[in-house]
Every structure is written in structure tokens, then in C-alpha cells.
């Protein structure tokens, strides 16, 4: 299954109003990798993720998933192999009950009723949300919504999982559960987030974006401890690395820019 690679070559994107959100982004993600995408507000992270499933199509450059280039004609195939979970689970849950919501994707893939059922069961089981099956989504807690949103995508058994700010709005334990959940998946994972500590826990490799371009791409541990790089890209050391009370290190104070 060496074809779950994601390759982005020289990607540029310009929104209709003229904002250039991506300026020549290139990288290649291999099968099974787990990659973090970080950068300040407006760096272009969400825009980049929207290209990976063909929600946006490149103005210039190329995106390939497996061996297939992402273009209008291949959207069907692409969307089957790339599953995307957006930041706000409310956007993702639009059916009257959790069960129907998770079944929505498989039904659209024209699976048999049994097939759909086993997909739904499996996906809900993976995120520990079987008991929520008949509940309406708008009555769920933040953490529950997040889990179900992931299940709606898992039920389509994608090869590649793309997540945009998955930990936003979760309380610390729910966030921790999410991290363990995600690190249990064997999918290729691409995670955009401001939560650098989660990226540190979840991803071996990180791509740092700044003003629509990739400014660094390499092992997470190295990049996220590089104070100069982080300061330049609107970031700072992950909190877990700052102010350690055990060793008393307080290395980040000097890296904080003036207000």
C-alpha cells in the first residue's frame, strides 16, 4: 500500500478577492506518516488542507494523492481516500441523529445495508461513541461532537486523515483522549493546529508555514525547539517546553516579541 502518499508541488492559491493564500508550497508525505502543519493565524494552513481533498483546486502547481492528480475529474476517487475533519464539528454534523450522520458517507458510496451498518458500528466503536448513536448531534458536548465528527469520516475508511485544529475548545482531558485516539490510528495523518504541544505529542514531522509559504519542514522535536524559527513564524515554544518547574528552565521569555 505504498500509494498513500501525498505530494504537493509548487502549489499556489489565490482567493477570488485577490488574497494570495499560498505561494509555492511543496512537500511529500509518505505512507503512514503523521505530519503537523503549524503557523500563525492566516498563514494558509486551512487553505492548504482544503487542497488535499479537492475542495479548492490549485491556481498553479499540483497536488497528487497516491498516483492521482487532484483535479475536477478525479474528485470522486480523491474524496474516498482522503477524509477531512474540520475545526468546528457543528459544520460536520448535519443529520438528525449521530447514527444517520455516520451512515451518510457510506450510503453515498452505495454500499449494501450490511456494509453500511458494519462501517457505522466500526467507526463509532473506534471513537468510543457507540452509546451516542441515536442522539441528535446538537445535544452533544464539545468532546462528544468532536469524536462523532471523526467517526463520520472514519466510516468512509479513508487512507489519509486530514484534521484542522482538532483540539479547539476541548477541555484538557478531552484533548488528551483525542490525542491518544488519533495516535492509535495507522492512517497517514495531516494535522493543522495552534496547539504545538499536541503536534509534539502526535506528529514526528512538522511543516511550518508563514505567509503562505513553507519556511521549515523536518522533525517536530527539532523545529519546535528552534526559537528563532518559531519567533519568525508567529509561534513560540510549545508550553511543555517553556518554564519547566522541574528543571527550572525558562528559556522562552526572550523569544516573546514585544506587543
Amino acid at each position: 500500500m505504498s500509494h498513500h502518499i501525498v505530494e504537493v508541488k509548487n502549489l499556489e492559491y489565490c482567493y477570488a478577492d485577490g488574497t494570495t493564500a499560498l505561494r509555492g508550497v511543496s512537500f511529500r508525505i509518505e505512507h503512514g506518516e503523521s505530519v503537523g502543519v503549524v503557523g500563525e493565524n492566516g498563514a494558509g494552513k486551512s487553505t492548504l488542507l482544503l487542497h488535499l481533498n479537492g475542495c479548492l483546486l490549485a491556481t498553479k502547481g499540483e497536488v497528487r494523492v497516491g498516483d492521482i492528480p487532484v483535479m475536477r475529474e478525479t474528485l470522486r476517487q480523491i474524496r474516498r481516500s482522503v477524509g477531512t475533519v474540520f475545526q468546528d464539528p457543528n459544520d460536520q454534523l448535519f443529520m438528525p441523529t449521530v447514527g444517520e450522520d455516520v451512515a451518510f458517507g457510506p450510503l453515498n458510496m452505495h454500499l449494501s445495508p450490511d456494509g453500511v451498518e458494519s462501517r457505522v458500528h466500526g467507526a463509532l466503536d473506534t471513537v468510543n461513541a457507540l452509546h451516542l448513536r441515536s442522539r441528535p448531534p446538537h445535544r452533544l458536548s464539545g468532546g462528544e461532537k468532536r469524536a462523532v465528527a471523526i467517526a463520520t469520516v472514519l466510516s468512509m475508511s479513508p487512507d489519509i486523515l486530514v484534521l484542522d485544529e482538532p483540539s479547539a475548545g476541548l477541555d484538557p482531558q478531552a484533548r488528551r483522549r483525542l490525542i491518544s485516539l488519533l495516535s492509535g490510528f495507522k492512517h497517514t495523518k495531516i494535522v493543522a493546529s495552534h496547539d504545538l504541544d499536541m503536534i509534539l505529542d502526535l506528529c514526528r514531522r512538522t511543516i511550518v508555514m508563514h505567509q503562505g509559504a513553507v519556511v521549515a519542514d523536518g522533525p517536530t522535536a527539532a523545529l519546535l525547539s528552534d526559537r528563532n524559527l518559531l519567533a519568525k513564524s508567529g509561534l513560540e515554544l510549545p508550553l511543555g517546553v517553556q518554564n519547566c518547574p522541574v528543571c527550572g528552565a525558562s528559556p522562552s521569555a526572550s523569544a516573546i516579541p514585544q506587543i
Partner: protein
Amino acid sequence: MTRIDTAISDIDVLDRLAAGVSPIHRLDPRAKLIVTVLFLLTVVSYRKYEVAELTPLFLYLAVLLALGRVPVLVIARYLLLACPFAVLVAVFNPLIDRQIIAQLGPLAVSGGWMSFVSILIRFVLTVSAVLLLLACTGYVTVCAALDKLGVPRLLIMQFLMLYRFIFILADEASRMLRAHSLRSPDGRGTSLRVWGSLAGNLLLRAYDRGVRVHTAMLARGFDGKFRPLPGFHWSIADSLFVVGSSAFLILVRHGQLATRMGRWALELSA
């Protein structure tokens, strides 16, 4: 699915133009509003067979377009997008009204064709005038002008609130549709049942947002009454603009400018 984004970027285009600087932008919005209404009234007051006498009104548009620095292409695009109903109704006129009422050399022109062309010209004139008003003034400022002209404040507030939340709800809707389309790879339209719960969820979120916004308003001392929006300064330029435009409109409406001009040109060439 792109319809929402298109609608928002259409609003955006006019908003950006309205943020520009030009002699027209500087005029008091009340002046522009009044003149626009007078202009529209003039256009629709012509009788149905009139074509030539409508053309001098394009002078007004040309001047505003140029002084207000509004790109012609923006207006043209809107005209193309917005025409269906008017054209649909007009298209029957040539079929029904075949009475010959004008002779252009060898060409006999029926009343239906005259009124058809007349409707098209009216359409271009009225739509462009409204778009120009907006492009040189901006929605919010037009609302403030209406407020100063005595329109009930509740309605003005509704105008402003609607405008504010269109962006947020359109954004929510397009994110929802995006998530929806990702899970329906066939990409056919939304079925009724799914539409119901998609729109229903959107509505519930809108409703909850309404409650939250209300809370935020209360927290800032809102007592059900809206304070006046900031005022404008009416200057001599504004008076000149209103008087000049009105004089122009009266002259055009009663002056037979096009026919006179044509006669004169024909006499010259003869």
C-alpha cells in the same frame, strides 16, 4: 455550493469600491440617495415606446461611473447576471405588438420592438444607477442616510444586523456544504431530507447565535433603543449636485434632446 461564496464576493466587490475615494464618494449619502431616486423615477416615467429620448440619461451614468472610479466591467457583469425576469417579460412584446410605428429608411419597426428595446434600456439604466449608488456610497452609509431621512430605526437596525450576519451565516453554510460534499462523492444536489436537516441545523445555530448576540448586547447596556448613527455634513457641493442633477433630469425629460441632436446632425450632413 459555490453560490454562497459568489454571493459574498459580489457583496465584497461593491463594498471594496465603496471604501474608495472620489468626488462622488465624498458627497453626502442623502444627496446621492435623493438623486438616484429622482433618476429612477425619471426613467420609469417615459412611455413604453420611447427609446431615443432615454439615451441622454446615459450621460448621468457615464459621469458618475467616471468620477466615482467604478470599473465598467463590474457593472456589466451584474447586468448580465440580473436580467432574466425583465427580459423574459419584454421578449413577448415583439411577438404580440406588431403594429408598425416607425420607419427607418427601408426598415419598418413595430411597436413591440420599440417597447422591447425600451425595456432593455430601462433595465440597464435602473440597475446601473442602483449599483453606482452602492459602489460610491456603501450599504452601511446608505442605511445611515435612510436613518437621517426618517425611516423607522427598527427597520434600519434590521438592515444593519442582517448585513452583519450574512457574512457569518454564509460562512457557516458554506463550511457545512463543504463537509457535506466531501461525504457525498457523487456530488449530486442535496436531497430534500438532507436539505431539511442541513438547513435545520444551520437554523438552530443561527438561533443560538441570536441568543448569544442578544446577551452580548445586553451586557453593553442595550435597552431596546438604538442611539442615532453618526451624522453627515451637508455641504454646498451636495446642494449643487442635487440641483444640477435635477435640472439635468428635467431637461432630458422634457427637452427632446436626442431628437433635436439627430435633426441637427442630419441637417448638417445634408
